[in-house]
C-alpha cells in the first residue's frame, strides 16, 4: 500500500444516509434513468434522488415501470432500473420481472420495504417481495444494514448484467434507508465473484467446427442470446463464410439482417413455413443463444428428426435442457463464435439452397389488401416501408399484431425489435417504448400495439406526454382479443366468448392525455396519418387504425403439435 493510500484510508470517512449513498452509487454506476412510482416507504430514497442527475420517470403503474426498464435495457444493452415502494408497489413489479427473467433482460428493481421493526408482522404495505421474487430473479436481497446498501446495489448491477443477463431485486427497509452509512463505496460480497465462462474448450470447438463444415443441410438457429452477447457481426460472418441459411427466434430478430438473402425470417408457431421446413429437414442445427422454446419445437418428439445439434449458450442449464446437444458449446456467443470462425469451412450445401428457394417460392408470407377494410399486415408493412431507412426501434405488445410484426417488420439490426417473448405479457409494448426512447433519444421509436394490449398499460401515455417523448404508438384495433379469438375460431368450433372488445375512441383518449392523435379507417388514409405522426417531434403521437377483426395469423400450427400440422395460409382464402 502506498503512503498516499494509507493516508487516504486513515482519513475519517464522511457519513451520510444509506439512501443518499444508494443514490450516489446509482450515479457512479452510470444510471441515467429510473422508472418508478413513489410511496411511503420509498420516500427516503426519493428524497435522496431529489436534485440527482438521474432522470426519474413517474410511471402510472409499477408494471409499466418494470417494462420501461426492460425497454431501456433491450435498446441500450445496459441494465434498466425500476423503483417501487413497499407492498403493492413492489408486487406490481412482479409481472415485469418475470418477463425480464424469461427474456434474459438485465433489470435492477429497487424496492422499499416497511421498517425492520414491522417485518414479518403484517405491517401496513408489507409484502414479502424477496420471497415472492426468488424464483423470478437471478438473485435478490433484503438489505438490513445501512452500510451494506450501496455495495449491494453495485453487486446487483453486476449480477444483472453478468453471464446470462436477468433481473435482480434489492429490497431495503425504510429505517435502513434512513440509517447512517459511509459516503464512500466499500467492497461488497460480490467483489471477488468470478465471472462466467466465456470461452469454449478447444476439443468441443473442433468437433463442432467439423460437424458444421461437413453438414449437408445446416441451419443457423439464432436466439436472443446473440443480441445480449453483442455477437450479431460474428453471426453474419459465420453465415456468409459458410453460406448457411439463418432463422431467428422472436427474441433473436435483428441478430441477423432479415433482408439478407440467407435469412429465413422467424421460425416457430407463426414463423415462415420455409424456416420451419428447413429446420425439419435439416441435418445440423446450429443453435446460438436460443433455448428450443415450445413455440419453436412444437411436439418435441417430431422436431427436427434428422438433425444433430450444435448448441452454444452461456447458460449451461440451457444446453440439453429441451433437446440433447450433440455438440455442446458452453460460453459467450461473441467469444465462442470468434474462436469458431477460423475453424469452419463452407459445407457443400448447393442442393440445400435450391430446396429452400423452392420453399420460399411455394409459401411466401402473404396477404392481399383489397377493399375498404385494412388488414393489420398491410398497416404494419406500410409503416415498415416508410421508416426502414430511419433505423427505427420497434416495440410490440402481445397477440396477433406481435406475430404479424414479427413476420412483416423486417429487422436488420440488433436491439431494434423489442417484444415480450417468453412470458407473452400484454401491456409490455407502450412502457417498453418509453424506456427505449429514454435510452436512445435520437432514434425513432415505434410501438406497434393491439387494442386489447394497449388497454392494459395505456396509462403510461401520461408519462410519455409528461416527458415529451416523441414515440409513435400504432394501435391496431380489430375490436377483439385477436389471438384468443383466433384460437376459439380454429380449436373451439368458433364459440367466441370473452374476446369482443367495446373500445374507446383511442384517438380521443390519446388527445385527452395530451398526445397527438390520428384516426385511420380506410387503407388510403394510412400513409397520410403515418406521415403526420412521424412529423410530431415534441410529444407522443398515436395512430388509431381500425383493422379487420376476422383476420387470422398464418402460418400456424396448433400448440404442442408437430410441424406437419402447420397451416400455411388461411384456408378460407384462396390465393388468386
Amino acid at each position, binding site marked *: 500500500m502506498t503512503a498516499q493510500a494509507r493516508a487516504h484510508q486513515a482519513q475519517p470517512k464522511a457519513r451520510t444516509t444509506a439512501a443518499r449513498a444508494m443514490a450516489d452509487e446509482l450515479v457512479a454506476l452510470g444510471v441515467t434513468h429510473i422508472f418508478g412510482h413513489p410511496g411511503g416507504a420509498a420516500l427516503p430514497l426519493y428524497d435522496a434522488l431529489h436534485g440527482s442527475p438521474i432522470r426519474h420517470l413517474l410511471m402510472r403503474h409499477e408494471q409499466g415501470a418494470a417494462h420501461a426498464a426492460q425497454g431501456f435495457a433491450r435498446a441500450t444493452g445496459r441494465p434498466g432500473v425500476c423503483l417501487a415502494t413497499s407492498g403493492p408497489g413492489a408486487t406490481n413489479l412482479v409481472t415485469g420481472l418475470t418477463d425480464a427473467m424469461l427474456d434474459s433482460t438485465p433489470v435492477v428493481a429497487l424496492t422499499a420495504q416497511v421498517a425492520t421493526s414491522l417485518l414479518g408482522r403484517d405491517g401496513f404495505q408489507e409484502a414479502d417481495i424477496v420471497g415472492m421474487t426468488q424464483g423470478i430473479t*437471478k438473485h435478490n436481497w433484503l438489505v438490513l444494514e445501512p452500510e451494506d446498501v450501496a455495495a449491494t446495489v453495485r453487486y446487483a448491477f453486476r449480477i444483472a448484467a453478468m453471464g446470462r443477463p436477468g433481473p435482480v431485486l434489492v429490497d431495503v427497509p425504510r429505517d435502513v434507508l434512513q440509517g447512517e452509512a459511509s459516503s464512500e463505496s466499500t467492497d461488497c460480497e460480490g467483489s471477488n465473484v468470478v465471472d462466467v465462462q466465456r470461452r469454449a474448450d478447444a476439443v468441443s470447438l473442433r468437433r463442432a467446427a467439423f460437424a458444421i463444415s461437413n453438414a449437408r443441410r445446416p441451419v443457423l438457429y439464432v436466439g436472443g442470446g446473440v443480441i445480449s452477447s453483442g455477437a450479431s457481426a460474428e453471426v453474419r460472418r459465420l453465415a456468409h463464410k459458410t453460406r448457411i441459411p439463418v432463422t431467428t427466434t422472436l427474441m433473436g430478430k435483428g441478430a441477423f439482417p432479415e433482408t439478407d438473402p440467407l435469412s429465413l425470417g422467424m421460425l416457430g408457431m407463426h414463423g415462415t413455413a420455409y424456416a420451419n421446413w428447413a429446420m425439419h429437414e435439416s441435418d445440423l442445427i446450429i443453435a446460438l443463444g436460443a433455448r428450443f422454446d415450445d413455440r419453436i419445437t412444437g411436439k418435441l418428439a417430431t422436431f427436427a428428426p434428422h438433425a444433430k445439434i450444435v448448441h452454444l449458450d452461456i447458460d449451461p442449464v440451457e444446453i440439453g435442457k429441451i433437446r440433447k446437444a450433440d455438440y455442446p458449446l458452453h460460453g459467450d456467443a461473441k467469444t465462442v463464435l470468434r474462436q469458431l470462425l477460423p475453424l469452419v469451412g463452407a459445407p457443400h450445401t448447393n442442393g440445400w439452397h435450391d430446396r429452400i428457394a423452392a420453399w420460399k417460392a411455394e409459401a411466401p408470407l402473404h396477404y392481399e389488401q383489397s377493399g375498404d377494410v385494412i388488414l393489420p399486415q398491410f398497416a404494419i408493412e406500410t409503416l415498415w416501408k416508410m421508416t426502414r431507412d430511419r433505423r427505427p426501434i420497434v416495440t410490440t405488445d402481445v397477440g396477433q399484431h406481435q406475430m404479424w410484426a414479427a413476420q412483416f417488420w423486417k429487422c436488420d439490426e440488433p436491439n431494434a425489435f423489442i417484444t415480450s417473448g417468453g412470458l407473452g405479457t400484454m401491456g409490455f409494448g407502450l412502457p417498453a417504448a418509453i424506456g427505449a426512447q429514454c435510452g436512445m433519444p435520437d432514434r425513432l421509436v415505434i410501438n406497434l400495439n393491439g387494442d386489447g394490449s394497449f388497454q392494459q398499460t395505456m396509462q403510461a401515455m401520461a408519462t410519455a406526454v409528461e416527458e415529451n417523448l416523441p414515440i409513435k404508438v400504432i394501435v391496431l384495433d380489430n375490436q377483439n382479443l385477436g389471438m384468443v379469438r383466433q384460437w376459439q375460431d380454429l380449436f373451439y368450433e368458433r364459440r367466441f366468448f370473452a374476446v369482443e372488445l367495446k373500445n374507446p375512441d383511442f384517438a380521443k383518449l390519446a388527445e385527452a392525455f395530451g398526445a397527438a392523435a390520428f384516426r385511420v379507417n380506410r387503407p388510403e388514409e394510412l400513409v397520410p396519418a403515418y406521415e403526420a405522426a412521424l412529423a410530431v417531434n415534441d410529444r407522443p403521437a398515436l395512430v388509431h387504425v381500425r383493422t379487420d377483426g376476422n383476420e387470422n395469423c398464418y402460418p400456424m400450427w396448433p400448440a404442442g403439435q408437430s410441424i406437419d400440422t402447420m397451416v400455411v395460409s388461411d384456408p378460407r382464402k384462396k390465393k388468386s
Partner: protein
Amino acid sequence: MQQHTFGIKAKDAPGLMARLETILRRQRIAIRSFSFEGGVGGGPARIDIVIEADEERSSLVERQFMRLEDVTEVVRMTGTPAFAQSEFTLEEKTA
C-alpha cells in the same frame, strides 16, 4: 426413477433453502431427505439433499442449483450415503 444425492455448499443466508426448494418444486421433485449444517464463523452452509428423479431431471436441477448466486459448490453424491443417512447409520451402529 432413482435416488440422487447432492452435497451443496452455499453462503449461509436466510432464504437459501427456499431457493433450492423452488428449483425442485418447479420440476415436481419432492425432497426425500435433507440435512443442513449452518456455516461457522461466516463460512458456507452445507446442505445434503436426497431426491428421487430420473437422470435427466436430476442433471437439470444440479445445473440449476449451481446457477444460484449463493451456491458455491454442488457435488453429486449419488451412490454414497447422504449426510443424514450417514448419521442415522452411525447412531444405529452405536446403539
